[in-house]
Structure formats: structure tokens, C-alpha cells
């Protein structure tokens, strides 16, 4: 479904990711784990088209999306839930959801879909007419996820969804990601929380200073000595 080949991205002269190749099959849930600054967010942003690709290709369902502007990539069904939520703070919760379905022409369909989202995330119904900037961090994350789902994504990419959330909220967010995957949406998860990610991911890649150093199933990586030492904080 998604094929990344030899992708390199640089900020000025500083290479952020170097010759990264990875793939996702339809229906998979795949994680990319790595330390802060390893290039995880850069990778996801390059797929979304919001940072320019230096070389390499990104193909999504036979379309070369690395040549497209970001808004067109989103309309292909490649949707990102950005790091730090980034809801539209001065718009209401409902308006944020409507923005998620911007490409949808049918207003009645958008309305129905927004109501489905409120059923999935009841807090969004309670806060429907509240400005998104006044929500708590956890509520904003729910809104950001719902807003992403409003676009009816084929591939949903999460950038650090657990960042800055309480342990209870982190648990809930991972539960939601699992549910979304079970609904048949392909998921790419970028996380610092390696343990949780590897537990829900079918496969995972380890990104270190811009390069992929390990690729395996989530279960195998949880048992991998290197991963244990570097990312799970377990001495072996």
C-alpha cells in the first residue's frame, strides 16, 4: 500500500533521514520507534508532503505521492495526526471535525460522520460548541484523532500520539489506535513509547539517526536484546 524507497530528507545541509526504505501492506499496523531526533517525525512529514523530499520515492497505491503537494496527498487518503495535536484552537470542536472532512463535498455525509465521531468519542459531543483551545490535552488528542478519521483515511499516520499525556490517557490512546486498526484502516505509528508501540504493532522499524537499523515483527523486537537495552530500559 505504501512503499518508501531510498528516501532522504535534509534540512539545509543537515541530513535528517538517509536512504530509508520501508513498506506497509493494506490493513497492517506498523510502528517506527526511535529516540528523540532520530528522524521519525521527519519521515512521516515527508510522506505527508510537508517537508521537501531530497531524493527517493514514496508510492501510495501506485501513485508517486512525493511529487504531490501536501493537500493532494491528504486527499489520496494518506492522513496524518500531527505531533502535539495541533487542533485549530479558535474554532469549535465541531468545526475542527468539519475541517477534517474538508475534501468531502456532501455536507449531509459530513454531518452524519461527525455524529458518528461523537458516538465514538462522547467527550466531543459534550464539548461540541466549545473552542478547541480550551480542551485538556487528552481531549485535544481525541479531537485530533477524530478529525483525522473525518477524512476517511486509507492510511492513518500517528506522530507521537502519547506525547505529553497522563498514563491513563496514554492507555486510552493506544486502545483507540487498536480499535481504528481493527476497523480496517492501515496504521503507521511513530512513537517514543517503544514498549506500547511494539505491543500493538504487527511489524516495526527502528530508526537511529536517520537510518533504519532494525526491522522485524513487533513481538520479536520486544525480545530483541538491542531494543531492550536501548528503548525498553531493560538491562540484559
Amino acid at each position: 500500500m505504501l512503499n518508501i524507497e531510498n528516501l532522504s530528507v535534509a534540512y539545509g545541509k543537515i541530513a535528517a533521514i538517509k536512504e530509508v526504505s520501508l513498506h506497509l501492506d493494506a490493513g497492517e499496523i506498523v510502528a517506527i520507534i526511535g529516540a528523540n531526533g532520530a528522524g521519525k517525525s521527519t519521515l512521516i512529514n515527508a510522506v505527508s508532503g510537508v517537508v521537501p523530499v531530497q531524493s527517493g520515492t514514496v508510492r501510495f497505491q501506485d501513485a508517486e505521492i512525493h511529487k504531490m503537494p501536501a493537500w493532494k496527498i491528504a486527499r489520496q487518503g494518506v492522513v496524518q495526526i500531527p505531533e502535539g495535536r495541533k487542533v485549530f484552537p479558535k474554532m469549535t470542536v465541531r468545526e475542527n471535525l468539519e475541517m477534517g472532512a474538508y475534501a468531502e463535498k456532501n455536507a449531509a455525509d459530513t454531518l452524519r460522520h461527525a455524529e458518528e465521531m461523537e458516538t465514538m468519542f462522547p467527550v466531543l459531543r459534550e464539548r461540541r460548541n466549545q473552542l478547541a483551545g480550551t480542551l485538556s490535552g487528552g481531549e485535544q488528542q481525541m479531537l485530533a484523532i477524530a478529525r483525522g478519521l473525518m477524512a476517511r483515511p486509507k492510511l492513518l499516520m500517528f506522530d507521537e500520539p502519547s506525547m505529553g499525556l497522563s498514563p491513563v490517557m496514554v492507555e486510552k490512546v493506544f486502545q483507540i489506535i487498536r480499535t481504528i486498526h481493527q476497523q480496517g484502516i492501515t496504521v503507521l505509528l511513530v512513537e517514543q513509547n517503544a514498549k506500547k508501540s511494539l505491543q500493538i504493532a504487527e511489524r516495526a522499524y527502528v530508526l537511529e539517526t536517520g537510518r533504519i537499523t532494525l526491522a522485524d515483527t513487533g513481538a520479536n523486537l520486544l525480545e530483541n536484546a538491542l531494543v531492550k537495552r536501548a528503548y525498553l530500559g531493560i538491562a540484559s
Partner: protein
Amino acid sequence: MFIQQLINGLTLGSIYALFALGYTMVYGVLLMINFAHSEIFMLGAYCGLGMLCVLPMAASGPAMFAVFAAAMFGSGAVAMLVERVAYRPLRHAPRLSPLISAIGISIFLQNLIMLTVGAQSMPYPEKFPIRQFEFWGVTLSTLQIFIFFLAVILMLLLNLFLRKTKMGKAMQATAQNHLVSQLMGINVNTIIALTFFVGGGLGGAAGVLNGLYYGSIKYNMGFFPGIKAFTAAVLGGVGNIKGAMAGGFILGILEVFAAGYLSSEYKDVIAFVVLIVVLIIKPGGLFGEQVTEKI
């Protein structure tokens, strides 16, 4: 006296408010002051004049509509073109570059009109009969009523557009975050162009109203009203749409009061005094950010 000044102030304020919206809307999406907006205002007045001269029909509602349609569409289109050629190529340049580019465009447009249309001021034909009402020693003209209501109607329409339509909401989203708007499938370039079109159109309407009110227009007519509309936008908090509307009315009233109670010589001074005082005391404007953003 007081009521009379208030009426005159509201009339002038209507023009400033419409004009200020273009500054504030563009600042909202691009964080830049479009200093060429004063020339968009001037071009609107000229487009309106052109339509007034070619229209064969006598004074009528449709004729008035045609005049404003021509001015708004013409100004909007030029504003969009200016964005495309002078600002978009500099989108990622240091913030000073588009500012200088704006000043260049401003000089270019003024000289273009001066050389092609003329350096003399041109009378705005009084095709539409103006009646005066007098009561309690106050004079009120149909033109003043027209200016006020047209401005209010246009502002209500803008508000409706921003709050109820998808494009309008996308404009708000773009003003809040370009990057995330793109992730929603919003073509940010289109929305920015649309912002220039709408803001430019409102500026063009203000230009025609200015021509009708003062009776003549000139190639450099945009300069002083431009600074005042900019002050109105700052007064309301640049980027804040309702603030610009309120700021326009407040500034118009202040200016007329200064002229009436101090001396008409002080008419232009007051705008600059307001600008300086606001920038020193409350740089965020009277209606600064109300929303507390949680991170």
C-alpha cells in the same frame, strides 16, 4: 453638535472599517501587512468611476449594483494578482522582503494610474440624487445612510461567509495553522488567494464609498485613508476581524470629533496619535486574543 459629529464619524468609520478588513484578513493568513492595500482601495474607486461613466442607464438600484460589482471584482482581482506575483514568490523569504515588495507594488500602481488615467483629481459624478434630512439641527443625507448600511451589510455578509461556509472556515483554519490545514486537504495557496480577493473587494467597495462621499478621486487618494485603515486594524488587534470593524468605527468617530472640537487641522493627527498610543500601551489591540491556548 454631538449627534452631528457622531453621524459624520459613523459614516467615515464605515469606510475605514471596510478598508481595514483587507489589512487584517491578509495579516491573519500571512502575518504580513499588505501595504499595497491602499492602492487596491484607489483602484476600486477608479473601477467604480469607470462603470459610472460607461453605464447608459439612469440612477437605479441595478446601476448602483453594477458600480459596486465592478469595483469589488476589479479590486479583488488585482489584489489576487499582486499576491501571486509579488508575495507568493517571497513566502519563505525573511519577513522584510514581502514588505518591501508591497511598497514597490504600491508605488507601481499609483504611477500606473497617474500615467494612464491622469494626475488630476477626477470628479465622481453625482448620478444618484442625494437628499438631506434636517431634524433637531442635525443634517443627515441619504448618502450617509447608504454608506453606513452598505458597509454594515458587507460586514455581515463577510461574517456569514467566515462562519457558515466551508471556504470561510478553511480561511480561519489557514490563519491558525498553514501546515495542519494542508494535512486536512486544504489548498492553502487557494485560500490565501481567496483572502486577497475578499479583502481586496471590500477595500474596493470602500474606495467607491470614499469617492461618493468626497466627490472626487485621485491616483494617490489611498495614502492617508490607508494609514487610517491600518491604524483601525491595529486598534482592533491586527488579524482580528471584528476588531478591525470596531476599530474602523472608533477611529472614524475620533477623527471627526478631533476635527469638530479641536480644529479640522487635527483631523489627520489623531489617527497617528491613536496608532502610537495603541502600539505603546496595548500593542495587541483593544480586542487582543481572548482564547487561552493550552499546550
